[in-house]
């Protein structure tokens, strides 16, 4: 039973990290209808930049904001230079460009930082505790707290501020929103900046959680998160979060516990195909 609870807590942490990555993807899909595969490369870059700043200053208080700023800039650059000019083409064109961008950023990380596995020896300043024989490490607590905080801030921005209103309007119909005085370009820029900054937080969290940074750490998230936004309902941010946490739990419990001889990475896609057959709009999708 104790093992079960520990697995549950681990699954929840992995699900939370998936949620942080998938968020950005869902935001981008919601507004531009582009499958932003390169988002996972931004996450990798986030981990590397965070590590670079941390190893020079040895404080996370500089590493995390620094990495968020760099990633936000990269995100906006990707949108301005690659995606926006390609919006007039059929959807496969931006998709393929995104995959190419993902691969080149990943390779760039490998060329600059070297092919070897780097460690991220930072301790997150959160207390660990144990309840009923189940130990919850400080890192786990940090993952939960950070995820909850990010979700709360994002919820506040989207539903309580004027900017959030503009964001929701633009994601329903960009042209109509523009004609009503919403600066759609700025909204899209901000969306990419926010999503990429969150991805960099996820990258640093993962790097500390597993104590490793490597250039291909984004490969699995890149495609798995695609399945997650389908399961959650294309462009639905709450749906993406629910799907991510369910997948994190499902992966750890089904594979780590029930010992099903299936690779954990295929589970997301199997879930996706089942959901597509049963409820094509996704768990929380509209229409």
């Amino acid at each position: 039973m104790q093992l079960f609870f520990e697995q549950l807590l681990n699954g929840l942490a992995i699900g939370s990290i998936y949620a942080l990555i998938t968020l950005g993807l869902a935001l981008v899909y919601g507004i531009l209808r582009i499958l932003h595969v390169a988002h996972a490369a931004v996450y990798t870059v986030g981990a590397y930049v965070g590590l670079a700043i941390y190893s020079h200053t040895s404080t996370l208080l500089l590493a995390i904001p620094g990495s968020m700023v760099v990633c936000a800039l990269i995100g906006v650059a990707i949108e301005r230079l690659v995606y926006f000019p390609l919006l007039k083409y059929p959807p496969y064109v931006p998709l393929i460009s995104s995959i190419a961008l993902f691969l080149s950023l990943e390779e760039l990380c490998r060329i600059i930082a070297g092919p070897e596995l780097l460690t991220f020896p930072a301790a997150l300043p959160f207390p660990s505790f144990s309840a009923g024989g189940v130990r919850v490490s400080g890192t786990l607590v940090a993952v939960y707290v950070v995820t909850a905080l990010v979700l709360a801030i994002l919820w506040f921005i989207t539903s309580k501020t004027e900017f959030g209103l503009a964001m929701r309007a633009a994601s329903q119909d960009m042209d109509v929103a523009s004609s009503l005085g919403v600066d759609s370009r700025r909204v899209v820029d901000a969306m990419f900046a926010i999503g990429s900054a969150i991805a960099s937080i996820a990258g640093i969290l993962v790097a500390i959680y597993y104590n490793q940074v490597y250039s291909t750490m984004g490969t699995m998230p890149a495609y798995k998160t695609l399945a997650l936004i389908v399961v959650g309902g294309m462009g639905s941010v709450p749906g993406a979060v629910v799907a991510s946490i369910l997948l994190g739990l499902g992966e750890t419990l089904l594979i780590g516990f029930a010992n099903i001889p299936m690779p954990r990475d295929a589970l997301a896609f199997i879930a996706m195909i089942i959901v597509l057959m049963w409820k094509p709009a996704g768990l929380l999708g509209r229409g």
Partner: protein
Amino acid sequence: MDYFATVATLIVIQAIAACGLNVIVGYAGQISLGHAAFFGIGAYASAMLTTKAGLTFWQALPAALLITMLLGFLLGLPSLRVREDFLAITTIGINFIVEAVFIYTPFFGGALGIGGIPRVVVMGGRLGNNQFLALCLVFLVLSLALCRQFARAWAGLACFAVREDETAASSMGISPVRAKLSAFVLGTGMAGLAGTLYAHYARFISAGDFGFPVSISIMSMVVLGGMGTLFGPLLGAMIIGILPEIFRPLIDYRMFIYSVLLLLMIRFQPGGLLGDSSLVVGLLKSLKKLVKPKNIANPREIGGDGDV
């Protein structure tokens, strides 16, 4: 000559697979990012039939093609329910699942793969490298001819119509389901053919040979050459096959150069090198005009679509 034959054979095999993908993506407009799965299914089917069931290459080939096409049909069915983006993700999923099945099923040799696949025997003699290259070339020519015929047949025209506008096509009495499935079956069949040839070329296969990166590289060939053109996939396969040989000294930067090339290509020339709005084709046409100013009537490339 052995080096040349080895490189050339692989290019020809990949060109066959790329032609198959072009039928699905270029002709029918159905984005598929899981083509390597069918390449792998063909290779595994042929490898199993020749090593475990003791068939010869020529007996295994039709069986492997049938198996691949049947699976292409079955896996194409769910794809009919979903639109562009969903289809892309579904096909990525199919690729990951098929690869996982190969790795995790002991029946398929598990992580070790299948070795000892026999060479192709023609009239009692085993084919050497050069003869095998010739055999692959014959299959490539057959595939190109098949694509050309398909593009001119009713089924191909129906595919073009569905690609341009599904609703309009179905209002004209064209069944989009039939058109998409025919493209899927033909395209996966060609991937199966390429896979079969690959199994007898490499003579050892494992699941990693048919992972998602392979799908990306086949897709890059089609994009680079020009989607929906007849010779585009062949050109793309040649470029992507020859580049690593030229860049041998830069082996560490190879993937980077590839992906940046693909990115620049799709960003600035989404129609590919042989597509209609392409710089290369434009240059060739203006050269032709300079040489022969009167002969402007230039039959357009089949399916070469202006606005892709």
